[in-house]
């Protein structure tokens, strides 16, 4: 896994072909899984399952195919910042959108869970 290039000056990791093939097989298996799960009635959990599998697939691609597992700290921070800002955009948008139906303020935070479930 930590095999270095033999050529001078290069600090780049050479990912073994076996790792790439394993990641590839995992991605294909997860695609089959997510497709299969979609045909099972899990109620609100269908969306959760689909998105969880998609996130796992994304992580596999990012860490191995995109070499982030072996990347410099600065690059990792830049990537994390990107996802953090995405999270801000989604969270703030939904916290507005999903709370517009509130009529009685005193129900307050107790409404958050049913409202989030409505999304699924």
């Amino acid at each position, binding site marked *: 896994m930590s095999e270095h*290039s033999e*050529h001078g*000056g*290069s*600090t*780049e990791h*050479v*990912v073994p*072909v076996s790792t*790439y*093939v394993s*990641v*590839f097989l995992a*991605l*294909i298996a997860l*695609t089959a899984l*997510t*497709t299969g799960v*979609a*045909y*099972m*009635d899990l109620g609100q959990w*269908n*969306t959760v399952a*689909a*998105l969880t*599998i*998609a996130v796992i*697939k*994304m992580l596999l*691609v*990012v860490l*191995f*195919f*995109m*070499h982030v597992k072996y*990347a*410099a700290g*600065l*690059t990792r921070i*830049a*990537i994390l*910042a*990107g*996802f953090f*800002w*995405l999270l801000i*955009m*989604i969270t703030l*948008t*939904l916290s507005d*959108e*999903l709370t517009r139906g509130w009529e009685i303020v005193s129900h307050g935070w107790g409404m958050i869970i049913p409202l989030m479930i*409505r*999304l699924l």
Partner: protein
Amino acid sequence: MSELAAHSAHPPGFAHQFETIAQQREAGKLGMWVFLVTEILFFGGMFTAYTVYRSLHLQAFVTGSHLLEVKFGATNTAVLIVSSLTMALAIRSAQTGKRKGQTIFWLILTMLLGATFLFLKFRFEWYHDYVDGIVPGVSWSYHGPYAPGAQLFMCFYFFMTGLHALHMVVGIGILTVLIIMTARNKFSSEYYAPLEISGLYWHFVDIVWIFLFPLLYLIGGRYLGS
């Protein structure tokens, strides 16, 4: 500069503002990732809008999702995953100093898989959507329940898959340039940054599809039957 000039054997492609080729490579990758972060937020804006409208018109979005065929979405997901593997192998063969023919082979295979994705998308999805009358504003003949909301869903579908396909077309253009550069011996095991950076782009476009597939095709209550 004088110190740099002393390195008589620095590899081709090494830019003079960098101390080492490794530093140049890191800078290039960071730059590409910063671009990809803007792409994350670009597609993220659409994913957010999709989520909001899905919550507002849930039944209509389920209806709309059933207008799509899972088999094509799943096949295209697999096609893109294979293309990500071949792209990674292309970079690896350049990185480990394999013959350029091997790098070119993997690059051409990646390009063909990208073209396969687009062919399936155009020929078996968009064209059929047009014929079946589920293209909003162009050809719309679906008047079943939740028709207006289903039209909204299809708008999202065409915008999201359309922008993704546009990225695929750009990716195929980039691959063409990479194949020419490899054939002209521009790369070595020391310098292959354009390959690696383009690989990041290609994998990113794959990731966008990894999210589009479940969001558009799968989460609309497929178990209910179509």
